[in-house]
């Protein structure tokens, strides 16, 4: 038979018992962590009607979403490429609370295109979202929860990258760029392609302070001193820009790890509205977690609520965490029909111990099973013996 039959599609992977055990351990610890911060788990559907799934995020996620036709309704279904909009829909339509709502989630997502870094098309997305509060306090809480997530995953040196989409947006508006120009310039800005940025601004016939400020934006990145420099360079900018810089400074000061500010970093520009952040680890070519504020996503669902959140790929976090699996004792119970033995097995299993019942022909495979103890009978009854 053709061996290629057993291969998985490109960018799709699976976890074998050892890896799955490590991941499951981490998953439980993280969900417990979120619960201890008051974030309640939601389990969102794997497929949804496409128009609902892409509400408010069409431009960012449309190409990434794998589609199929629902045989029952004839409507298009999308397989989720990101759980964040689903959680927003749940907050807007299902919960409808006035109070701030804290939700967390974990689940596989499917992406049409592999992530350019890990090559994965099926990340295991884990994240938390806070709805209904528009201040710096909620951004700070989400940021710290992201950092706590990374620490719990065993990552020590974490670098935080902070940006604010409001800065570029306000400058583009100030310069009078129309939508198409704004996005073309955004693409160049994302690559910090200084030569292209200058060229585009020239093509748009821009000059004076608006052009100078947009030109300078790609270089405004670095430690906290860059913010003072930004206030100077962007002195002529609208108030929104200065408010955003103040916001970044305040948020950065409260943060528990080294912060790198980048005023031209925009990430999911279409649906982000305020602060955007990402975490990096030394030696990793790409970000390991990301998040930010996206206040308008609820509008598409008819109920705009301020929102902020973060997410990461749990499989990626697990791969970065080099801790070996700690093996639990495994007890082998002989294939003997005995009421006392049954009782003993039930008791051990209730205590959380692993008890494997011997099957005929299994005796030789003890080493392969990782057996550490066996149950043996003596005058006093069944007792555990080390292998």
């Amino acid at each position: 038979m053709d061996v290629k039959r057993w291969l998985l599609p490109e960018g799709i992977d699976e976890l074998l018992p050892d890896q799955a055990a490590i991941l499951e351990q981490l998953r439980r610890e993280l969900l417990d962590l979120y619960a201890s911060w008051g974030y309640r788990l939601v389990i969102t559907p794997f497929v949804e009607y496409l128009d609902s799934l892409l509400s408010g995020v069409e431009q960012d996620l449309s190409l990434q979403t794998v589609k199929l036709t629902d045989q029952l309704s004839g409507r298009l279904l999308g397989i989720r490429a990101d759980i964040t909009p689903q959680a927003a829909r749940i907050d807007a339509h299902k919960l409808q609370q006035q109070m701030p709502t804290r939700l967390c989630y974990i689940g596989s997502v499917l992406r049409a295109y592999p992530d350019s870094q890990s090559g994965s098309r099926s990340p295991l997305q884990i994240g938390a979202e806070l709805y209904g509060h528009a201040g710096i306090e909620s951004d700070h809480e989400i940021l710290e929860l992201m950092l706590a997530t990374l620490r719990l995953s065993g990552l020590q040196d974490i670098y935080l990258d902070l940006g604010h989409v409001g800065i570029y947006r306000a400058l583009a508006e100030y310069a009078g760029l129309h939508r198409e120009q704004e996005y073309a310039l955004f693409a160049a800005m994302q690559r910090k392609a200084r030569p292209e940025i200058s060229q585009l601004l020239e093509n748009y016939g821009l000059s004076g302070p608006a052009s100078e400020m947009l030109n300078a934006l790609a270089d405004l990145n670095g430690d906290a001193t860059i913010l003072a420099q930004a206030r100077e360079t962007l002195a002529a900018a609208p108030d929104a820009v200065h408010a955003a810089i103040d916001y970044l400074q305040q948020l950065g000061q409260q943060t528990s790890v080294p912060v790198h500010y980048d005023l031209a970093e925009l990430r999911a520009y279409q649906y982000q509205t305020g602060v955007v952040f990402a975490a990096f680890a030394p030696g990793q070519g790409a970000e390991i977690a990301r998040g930010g504020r996206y206040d308008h996503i609820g509008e598409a669902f008819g109920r705009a609520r301020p929102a902020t959140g973060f997410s990461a790929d749990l499989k990626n976090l697990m791969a970065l965490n080099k801790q070996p699996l700690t093996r639990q004792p495994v007890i082998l119970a002989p294939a003997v029909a005995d009421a006392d033995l049954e009782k003993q097995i039930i008791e051990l299993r209730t205590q959380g111990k692993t008890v494997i019942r011997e099957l005929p022909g299994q005796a030789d495979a003890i080493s392969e099973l990782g057996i550490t103890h066996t149950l043996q009978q003596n005058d006093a009854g069944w007792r555990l013996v080390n292998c």
Partner: protein
Amino acid sequence: MQFKTPITIALSKGRIFKDTLPLLEKIGIHPLDDIKTTRKLILDTNQNNVKLVLIRATDVPTYVQWGAADFGVTGKDVLLEHGGDGLYEPLDLKIAQCQLWVAGYPDADTHVRRLRVASKYVQSARDFFHARGQQIELIKLYGSMELAPIVGLADVIVDLVETGNTLKANGLVPLEFITDISSRLVANKASWKTKHEDCKKFVNALRDVIEQE
């Protein structure tokens, strides 16, 4: 110039390597090995923390994107094909300059329906013709593109033109200008964040050198 963290720079052999070395020399970085004779692919430099890796031009964006190198020098032509995803392109080094052209016989009509275009630069060719709403048939070639119109494989080619001599020798002429090409410094996004001080120092020093020239 001293670096606090290890920095790896990816260069491609040939012209880019030859033209980049003087720039690096001016900011105080030069390879220890004799570049004419060495067969090594990783070169140590006079700076303890700086290494050069020698790879194929088209592989440079890939190495940098995945973080296997912090910086790279590569042509804009290569970047246009690669897409530039996950990279910063902070500097135009203004070396290895040339232009991307549509070329063919002097009487070639580039506006015919389903024009057949042969090129190594399929992405750039597609973008150029699609931008004016023209559907084309693309034939991917890896070299000697000038041959394609001569043997009737394609109506026109899209290729880099420096002096135009190769085209001329084969009876072809540049027909339509696509874009200027030069070598760019590219940087890995994560390196930029985690080794920011060194990265910025390196880029600023290079920028000063280029602006002086």
